[in-house]
């Protein structure tokens, strides 16, 4: 007990005695590196507006580093710029450019190594390799950063925000564009990814693997090379995200592979080649999502069991559902389908005739991909119609028994 009180008193002492160390051309410290060496733990380093040509800056004590009017730290393409190896570090308001590209090391603009309770905020990162790289670091916050890369080829570009074995991280309000993967998580659990905008990235807007119990909320993923890919994770919540215009022969709005027990609620999928591509994903609830103007709204590849598709809007997709087996264990209920042509005699808002979301053509294309060459041919329209009247090929229990007759609002 004595020890703890002593510790508390000491730390309060340290806090109160924390000083502000200024860095500028006419100050005592002209470089950030020397300022860090001279600073005591819990000091604040205030960097005035100027250009600092420095790289490999190691922050090895709990410091608060604040930039005034966005001072520029230019790494001159020589390597990593900021490396944090201490707990409780705050980095705020810097303009970091020219991170060195390497084929053997992942140089980052800001790297956090085995540290906790850090805050990275209000940074602008440009001309970078990796943006913010978290390595076995927990309990941190990353917010209001702007990461703008110039990625052209996948093999020599890095990711915007990368988490590796890092838990309990909040990533909020960041803007990421033109990097390889916007946000990349690997072995990172209990994270909150909220209100980020990830656009124009070379590969994925968001990419995670083996990362459980995370929440993705209110993010926008737009115009990414291959959309969003999420794999091998459990208990994910994806709420109110927007997946837009991920359009190309190998693009997805979202690709789910081996995702179990997830909730996908209130998202918007607009103009993607494939809205959601599902493979080996079980017990997922899809509710209140908008699928509009996609090539395929949902493509079910196989080994997908007990999923529920409830109260979604399927609006003007070329194909609503593609399904490659005759066995169906998934539930489609109370959705609105723009292709529904049934009637509602008792006017309760629920169509009296069940809706078959799998068209014959979509079944054929799944079986023999080359048949897509008959897209928009008169013959296909005719046999689609006949299949609708009397299904032969499509799974006959894949039905929405209660199709809504009006678009669902929530």
């Amino acid at each position, binding site marked *: 007990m004595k020890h703890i009180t002593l510790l508390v008193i000491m730390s309060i002492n340290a806090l109160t005695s924390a000083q502000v160390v200024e860095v500028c051309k006419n100050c005592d410290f002209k470089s950030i590196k020397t300022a860090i060496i001279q600073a005591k733990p819990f000091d604040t380093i205030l960097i005035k507006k100027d250009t600092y040509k420095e790289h490999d800056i190691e922050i090895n004590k709990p410091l608060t580093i604040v930039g005034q009017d966005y001072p520029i730290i230019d790494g001159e393409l020589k390597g990593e710029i900021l490396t944090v190896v201490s707990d409780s570090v705050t980095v705020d308001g810097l303009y970091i450019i020219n991170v060195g590209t390497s084929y053997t090391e992942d140089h980052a603009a800001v790297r956090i190594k085995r540290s906790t309770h850090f805050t990275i905020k209000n940074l602008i990162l440009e001309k970078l390799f990796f943006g913010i790289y978290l390595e076995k670091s927990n309990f941190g916050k990353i917010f209001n950063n702007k990461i703008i890369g110039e990625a052209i080829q996948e093999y020599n570009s890095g990711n915007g925000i990368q988490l590796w074995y890092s838990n309990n991280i909040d990533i909020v309000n960041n803007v990421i564009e033109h990097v390889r993967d916007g946000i990349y998580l690997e072995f990172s659990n209990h994270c909150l990814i909220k209100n980020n905008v990830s656009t124009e990235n070379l590969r994925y807007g968001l990419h995670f693997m083996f990362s459980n119990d995370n929440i993705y909320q209110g993010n926008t993923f737009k115009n990414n090379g291959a959309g969003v890919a999420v794999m091998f994770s459990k208990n994910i919540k994806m709420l109110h995200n927007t997946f837009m215009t991920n359009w190309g022969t190998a693009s997805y709005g979202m690709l789910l592979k081996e995702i179990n027990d997830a909730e996908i609620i209130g998202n918007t999928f607009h103009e993607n080649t494939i809205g959601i591509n599902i493979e080996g994903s079980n017990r997922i609830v899809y509710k209140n999502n908008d699928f509009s103007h996609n090539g395929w709204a949902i493509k079910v590849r196989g080994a997908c069991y007990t999923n529920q598709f409830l109260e979604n809007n399927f609006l003007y997709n070329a194909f609503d559902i593609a399904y490659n087996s005759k066995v169906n264990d998934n539930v489609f209920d109370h959705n609105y389908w723009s292709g529904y042509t049934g009637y509602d005699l008792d006017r309760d808002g629920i169509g009296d005739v069940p809706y078959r979301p799998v068209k014959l053509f979509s079944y054929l294309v799944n*079986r023999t991909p*080359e048949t897509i*060459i*008959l897209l928009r041919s008169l*013959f296909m329209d*005719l*046999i689609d119609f006949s299949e609708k009247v009397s299904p032969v090929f499509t799974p006959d229990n894949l039905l929405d028994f209660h199709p809504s007759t009006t678009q669902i609002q929530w």
Partner: protein
Amino acid sequence: MLKILKYSFFDLMRSRWSYVYLLFYFLLGIVLLFLNNDLSKAVITLMNVIIVLAPLIGTIFGVMYYYNSREFTELLLAQPLKRSSIFLGQYLGVALSLSMSLILGLGVPFLMYGLLQSSAIWNFSLLLITGTFLTFIFTALSFNIALSNENKIRGFGYAMLLWLFLAVIYDGFFLMALILFEDYPLDKLSLVGTMLNPIDLSRTLILLKLDISALMGYTGAIFKKFFGTDYGLILSIFMLILWTILPVMRMVFKAKKKDF
């Protein structure tokens, strides 16, 4: 020949059906553009209409015109005129007047909409070019059928059957072939199958130029690699020209031999 062409052309231009045809395209163009406001979507819808309608109208007009102007043709045959120029003149008169209805009917609304500033101009031009080709091809085919059949009803029936075959039934056989041989690589088969039918060829050419081609995934990529290159484009235009020239040649040949 030019005189007969001119005569046939103005004869058709004066007829009510040409105006109806022109007006139809004109209204379709206006409705699609000004109610939709999305040029790329308008081009897709127009494509759906054109690849079905241009061959159909070409077939019907060709057969009807041939049978209706039979007496006039016999009168011309009595004159010292080359047979090839009589029939070529009539054929070109019909095909040109139909193509003009198509081009004017769709071109004017698009020009009014401001096509020249838009990036869709190439897609749109391709649409008009394929539409014109289809008109020429199917008019020639229908002239052939009419020449070979004295019986009007039978000729008309054959012409409709031909249209039905190329527009619908062919795709059915094509699909069956694709599914039957699904264990084998199908890239070549699907390419050849598309090449052999002018309607399929036009549809594929236009679809590949539009955004929607991304839907085609792997197959689309192969097709794009083929049709996207100069070689592919030249080959498909060559196929369309071949589809026009062969029936025209048979028509001229048949007309020379025919006993009127």
